[in-house]
């Protein structure tokens, strides 16, 4: 499927608009031919022929034709714009839809700025193609055909002589399209890099300032800024090579018409009057030839944008999203059966190896282990952000892969390590998973997360808008709001990934008590570095390099005097400050 066929799928929904637009287009374009004729009549019949009474009607015809022509043109322009906007709307919706279907893998490998470019700059190039380039091309084709038909009736020899030149134009146009293709793709890519660079600079503004790297950032920006300019100039260079020739050949039609036409007249094969009339229609043949080069640039820009959009739309997520309407309510039993996981692009390196355990609904599972030992990956497998490479994850005895993914996730709440809050009010952030919750409920979950107090103290309380990603709040505050957000969903399975790392222990204990006291029991996974966070769990898993090395309740693990015991002693020691090298 080429780009035109592809975009046609979006445009075709507007076919009735297009048909009407085409009718108006034909009327409007045909009317262009009328006024020159009327003006000829004024000269011939009114001025030379002295048919004075014809003057006013002829002038009225001229005005009437112009009014009609401009109105019809206005209508078809608007209709083309409308078609462009409607197609753009659908395209954006499709892309937005796709965005939510794609899995972590895609986002780990594509920069935010690049995805942004696809959804803004690229879609705009497509809009421009549909609402402007399309009818410009039509106009060219129309002029070309009509002018040739008219000219043929005047002098077929002269017309053939002119038409003989057109293959050169076609050839030039094609050569130019081929040369411009990589140029416009390069412009598009450069734009995307520029966009990504600025996007990162804005997101990382705190780090830039903290390290006084403004100059470094500016020089980095300069490179991208200049590169973008250079890519545009490279395309201008190609235009510079081809466009003057296209223009020149279009103009050469005038020379041919004049010289060959003059020759024909001298040879008495044509009248002088015919030559003058013939010359009058030449612009209609010139125009499309001159335009062709410029249109090629627009079309190549369109193609460059299509590539990236189509690529994104064609990306198949590893984990397919299928939707069903039936609501799903799970109980919360979770079982891992010999689960092994590695990333697809790194099969040598297992993130999880042969992990097996089982949790009953309502139980609390604590997971501890070193940085990079696979804790987060383990819980990601439960909500199917990844699927196991081998083995099975079962929820309520059924393989998670058999659940419709969105319904499954609707039953699971995950509080991620990286707290992401939206630039929206706190109320809307907490009710993120369940829009339009009532205020009382929101406050009650905030209380469980021990967030109610500080939220109330804010100038606008629950209506305070937090900055992007929750800047302006402390780490602990963000974590507590994100916990409230997870609780507001009332999930069957709750996963807390290092959720209380930035809150003090007192608050943590308070939160744990509140969680334990919740009326509906949730299967809870707690990932933590501090033993205090997991010691009350029904099952504690100690992960090391992707394997469960110890599992059991706190007391049991303590008795074993193994790795868990070591960690505990170390933490106690760290807290007491008895570590060697620490005492002053």
């Amino acid at each position, binding site marked *: 499927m080429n780009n035109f066929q592809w975009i046609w799928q979006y445009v075709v929904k507007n076919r009735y608009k297009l048909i009407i637009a085409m009718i108006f287009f034909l009327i409007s374009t045909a009317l262009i031919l009328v006024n020159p004729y009327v003006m000829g009549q004024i000269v011939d019949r009114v001025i030379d022929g002295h048919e004075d009474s014809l003057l006013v009607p002829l002038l009225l015809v001229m005005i009437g034709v112009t009014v009609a022509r401009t109105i019809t043109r*206005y209508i078809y322009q608007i209709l083309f714009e409308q078609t462009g906007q409607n197609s753009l709307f659908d395209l954006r919706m499709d892309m937005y839809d796709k965005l939510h279907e794609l899995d972590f893998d895609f986002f780990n490998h594509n920069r935010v700025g690049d995805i942004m470019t696809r959804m803004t700059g690229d879609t705009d190039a497509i809009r421009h193609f549909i609402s402007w380039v399309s009818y410009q091309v039509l106009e060219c084709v129309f002029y070309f055909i009509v002018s040739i038909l008219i000219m043929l009736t005047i002098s077929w020899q002269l017309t053939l002589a002119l038409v003989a030149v057109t293959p050169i134009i076609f050839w030039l146009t094609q050569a130019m399209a081929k040369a411009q293709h990589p140029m416009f793709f390069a412009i598009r890519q450069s734009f995307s890099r520029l966009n990504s660079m600025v996007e990162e600079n804005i997101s*990382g503004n705190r780090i830039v300032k903290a390290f006084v790297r403004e100059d470094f950032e*500016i020089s980095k920006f300069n490179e991208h800024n200049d590169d973008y300019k250079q890519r545009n100039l490279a395309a201008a260079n190609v235009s510079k090579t081809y466009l003057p020739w296209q223009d020149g050949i279009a103009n050469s039609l005038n020379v041919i018409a004049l010289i060959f036409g003059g020759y024909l007249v001298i040879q008495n094969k044509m009248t002088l009057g015919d030559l003058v009339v013939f010359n009058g229609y030449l612009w209609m043949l010139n125009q499309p030839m001159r335009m062709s080069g410029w249109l090629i640039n627009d079309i190549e820009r369109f193609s460059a944008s299509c590539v990236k959009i189509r690529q994104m739309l064609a990306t198949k997520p590893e984990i397919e999203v299928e939707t069903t309407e039936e609501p799903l309510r799970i109980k919360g039993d979770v079982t891992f059966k010999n689960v092994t996981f590695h990333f697809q692009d790194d099969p040598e390196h297992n993130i999880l190896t042969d992990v097996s355990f089982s949790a009953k609904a309502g139980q609390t599972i604590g997971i501890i282990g070193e940085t990079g030992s696979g804790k987060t990956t383990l819980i990601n497998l439960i909500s199917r952000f990844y699927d196991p490479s081998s083995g099975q994850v079962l929820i309520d005895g059924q393989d998670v892969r058999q659940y419709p993914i969105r319904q499954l996730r609707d039953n699971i709440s995950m509080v991620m390590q990286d707290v992401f809050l939206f630039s929206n009010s706190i109320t809307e952030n907490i009710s993120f998973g369940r829009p339009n919750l009532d205020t009382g409920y929101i406050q009650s979950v905030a209380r469980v997360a021990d967030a109610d107090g500080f939220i109330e103290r804010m100038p606008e309380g629950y209506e305070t808008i937090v900055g992007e990603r929750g800047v302006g709040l402390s780490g602990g505050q963000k974590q507590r709001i994100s916990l409230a957000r997870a609780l507001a969903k009332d999930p069957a399975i709750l996963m807390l990934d290092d959720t209380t790392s930035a809150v003090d222990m007192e608050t943590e204990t308070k939160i744990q008590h509140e969680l334990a006291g919740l009326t509906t029991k949730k299967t809870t996974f707690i990932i933590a570095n501090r033993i205090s966070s997991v010691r009350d769990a029904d099952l504690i898993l100690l992960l090391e390099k992707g394997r469960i090395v110890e599992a059991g309740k706190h007391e049991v693990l303590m008795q074993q005097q193994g790795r868990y015991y070591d960690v505990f002693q170390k933490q106690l020691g760290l807290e007491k400050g008895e570590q060697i090298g620490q005492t002053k």
Partner: protein
Amino acid sequence: MVKRNKSNVDEAQVEQFNWHGYVRLAQYIKPYLKKIYIILSVIVLANIAGMLGPYFTKVVIDEVIPNRNISQLLLIGGLYTISLFLMGWCIRYRIYHITEVGQDMLKDMRLDIFQHLQKLSFSYFDNRPHGKILIRVVNYINTLSDLLSDGLVNLISDVFNVLITLVFMFAINSRLTWYSLSLIPILVILVLYVQKRQRKAYQILSNKQSNLNAYIHESITGIKVTQSFAREDENFRIFNAINTENSQSWMHAVKIQFLLWPGVQNIAVITTCLIYFVGIRQIGVNVSTGTLIAFIGYINNFWNPVINIGNFYNSLITATAYLERIFETLDEPVEIEDAPDAQELPAIVGDVFFNNVTFRYEPGKDILKKVNFKVQAGQSIALVGPTGAGKTTVINLLSRFYDVNEGAVLIDGHDVRDVTLASLRRQMGVMLQDSFIFSGTILDNIRYGKLDATEAEIVAAAQVVHADDFIRHLKDGYQTQVEERGNTLSAGQRQLIAFARVLLADPKILILDEATSSIDTETEELLQAGLHALLKNRTSFIVAHRLSTIKNSDQIFYVNGGQIAEHGNHQELMQTRGQYYHLYQSQYAMLKID
């Protein structure tokens, strides 16, 4: 404090575009005037070459054909061809150089806005979705591209053409010329009518585009949360609304914008008809047929550039909506900047003195009230206290991310406001809560702390903070590519990288804001030793919740209610049995086995 903006709310328009805006725009054109003059002369040359065509045609029809002179015909053919080559060269020159000038201006403008952005304080970035800032630097500026290249040059040549044609018209017949200008007032009214509405429409549109950009941006960055909360349908609903608003305001804008062309076109034709009428009926004028026909020819020459100028004006109004936003950003006041007579801060030892410091984000709500403390170089200070008590504010004032409202912050006796920001911050290492990772290699990310660091230095820094081990286990070691924010790394890993980055910067004053919260025990234990080495000979401020980190500090500040409620070392504070004692007891109790 201005209320923060969110993605589906239009931003308030602060600045209205006026003549001053055009003057400002002209500043960007100024450096390229010489190039523009050359391009204009090339265009004039092309126009002259273009006029040869009709002349040759006239000669052939009037003389060559009646005389049946074939050799003269061929000669003219040759001359005509030569004129075409000349025109071709002009076009060639124009295409490239217009693009160059236009791109240069865009580049300058983009650089200005980016540079300004680097000077703006946190609050600018915190108060609006980032997608709305992004669109100004990149997309809005791109919309000016046509205006500043072809648009500008064509405008000048069109104005020139109109004036020349008017001179010819007056020379032929001034009466007729006045007739043909009689409808200009209607044109002006039309332009004013369209202008007002079009401008409003494009202001709305630019807001909607900004909202759309912001929502897309946040949807991408927050995609994991959205997916894990299965909240896709709600997002689709919101996006659908924003998308619809965007389409509708676009249509509204073009419906107005497209009115101008039909208006000008009709006025032009009516004027032509008027000239025919008065010319033929000899109403108030007395002209020969030849003159009339020649005059009609000039009228077309007059209206074509006028239509072009109209189109230019149209796109200028469109651009105004974007220019307003661009200039608004450029005018955003820089809250924290170097004093006019700021000195370089000499190499410091690291004494810190808070002298009666009061700070507030908004009037009437003091975050810090008359805070006084002195820290000697080399000491480590732990800041503890309840959330929102002002710990982070102390740190932000120290590195001058905000300025005090009363009192002064002194480093080695220098008021931080009297020295240059760069020299101050260069000697400070700040490790923030959010360990931001740039896309690029791990090596580059650590190198951010010291741009000219060798690989060996980088590895050494990573070893001190015990990041070396996990980095070597990554697929490509230090050359492993990470994406923005380091999605593929765990939070603990990112903190270690951020740690190495700060260490590499080798600051005299080190600020750690909840910097080790996500690091596991094993690593923390190792890190403690490294940290100990790291803190040596540096003044350090640490906001932390872990008792281990707190206890080992030289001084502990218990911050509460905007003041340092208690201070002293661990033993001293334990003896006072105050708020710190209570905090310590309750936390320690939780650790012990029942």
